[in-house]
């Protein structure tokens, strides 16, 4: 059995770890509230944007000449995957869930004999993917400096993606992120952004005749790049809310586990202390008896 001193040290160290995890949980909770708020506030923009595009694309007359961002290049040879993760660790399964989802997608693409290119956003994803897919990663973007997800950063990623599309470096673009459902549940998502997939186009087929100024094509070609940035921004907002939520519950668990450990160790400590006292007593008594 460990000596009393050792036990005491262990209890102290578990307690200080508990303090750290507790503090991290509080910080995450505060950040979560902000992140959740901005995720909710950001939703109208992306929804409206989606609506306008749906209305536009259903109204477009000449499907053949539609912008490539909408209709695709006609090939599906080269896939670009944008994997969005966090820059910091200690957030439970947040990053590994995205990576797992992404990896299963990658192996499907590769087994289909298609080409794969990866852009990682956030350093944790890059760290985890480097080992297996290091040669496939063409770019790594990290926003360590900026505190909150902002549109400016998203626009930057969007521009990179569009540039690569225009120089025909890929045919299909998919983004990976965690959708925030609640503090406990985050769902890893794979969303195809190029060419645009309309999710529920059947519902939106009401024939509203719009007037366009200038014409549809010009509006669409102006709108679609913006939509890419918007979708990425949405993903970033969802991701940051998910990250904080996931960190909060992970740290909550850690705090609870540390508490249990302290309890167990305290019992063990008391027991061995008692044993030592009993032993001493026996020694004294038997010493006195032998006199």
């Amino acid at each position, binding site marked *: 059995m460990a000596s009393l001193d050792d036990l005491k040290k262990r209890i102290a160290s578990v307690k200080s770890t508990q303090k750290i995890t507790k503090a991290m949980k509080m910080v995450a909770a505060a950040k979560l509230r902000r992140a959740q708020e901005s995720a909710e506030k950001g939703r109208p923009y992306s929804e409206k*944007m989606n609506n306008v595009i749906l209305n536009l694309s259903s109204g477009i007359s000449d499907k053949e000449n539609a912008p490539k961002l909408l209709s695709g290049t006609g090939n599906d040879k080269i896939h670009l995957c944008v994997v969005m993760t966090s820059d910091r660790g200690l957030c439970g399964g947040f990053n590994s869930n995205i990576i797992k989802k992404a990896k299963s997608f990658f192996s499907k693409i590769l087994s289909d004999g298609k080409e794969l290119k990866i852009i990682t956003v956030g350093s944790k994803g890059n760290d985890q993917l480097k080992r297996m897919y290091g040669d496939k990663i063409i770019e790594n973007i990290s926003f360590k400096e900026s505190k909150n997800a902002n549109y400016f950063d998203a626009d930057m990623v969007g521009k990179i993606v569009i540039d690569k599309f225009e120089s025909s470096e890929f045919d299909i673009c998919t983004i990976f992120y965690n959708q925030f459902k609640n503090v406990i549940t985050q769902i890893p998502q794979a969303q195809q952004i190029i060419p645009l997939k309309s999710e529920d186009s059947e519902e939106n087929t009401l024939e*509203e005749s719009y007037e*366009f100024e200038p014409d549809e094509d010009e509006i669409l070609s102006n709108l679609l790049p913006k939509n890419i940035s918007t979708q990425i921004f949405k993903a970033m907002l969802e991701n940051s809310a998910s990250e904080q939520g996931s960190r909060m519950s992970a740290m909550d668990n850690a705090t609870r586990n540390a508490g249990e450990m302290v309890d167990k160790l305290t019992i063990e400590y008391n027991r061995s202390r008692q044993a030592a006292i009993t032993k001493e007593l026996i020694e004294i008594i038997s010493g006195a008896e032998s006199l």
Partner: protein
Amino acid sequence: MSEEFKIEIVNPEKSFLVKEDVSEVVVPAYEGEMGILKDHISIISFLKPGIIKITSKSGNENYYVEDGIVEFKNNNLSILTSSILNIADIDKSKQQNLLKRAEEESVKGEISDQSKYLIDQKIEVLKTLN
């Protein structure tokens, strides 16, 4: 019959402005300024740098925008923009700042004619602000 309709301005971060009692809105559409009254035909257009003028019961408001999309449908006007500022909030130094940035952009060599046109437009609007 009231002559009012609803306007909603959203930027990526949040819903910027919602008003239910708007009687007239003038937006700087791509092909010139466009006034929108109640029961306007459904329209989609996008914005160039300029000033959105909102006339409502509770007073007039002016906003400076750099880009965006307008959609009008069923007496709902939605404006999506990534950069919007209330003119009342723009003071001299802010305006000079924006102007300086725009001017720097315009002297950069490798821009397309279209973006050059937009930047010139931006400079012009900014100059009229003070």
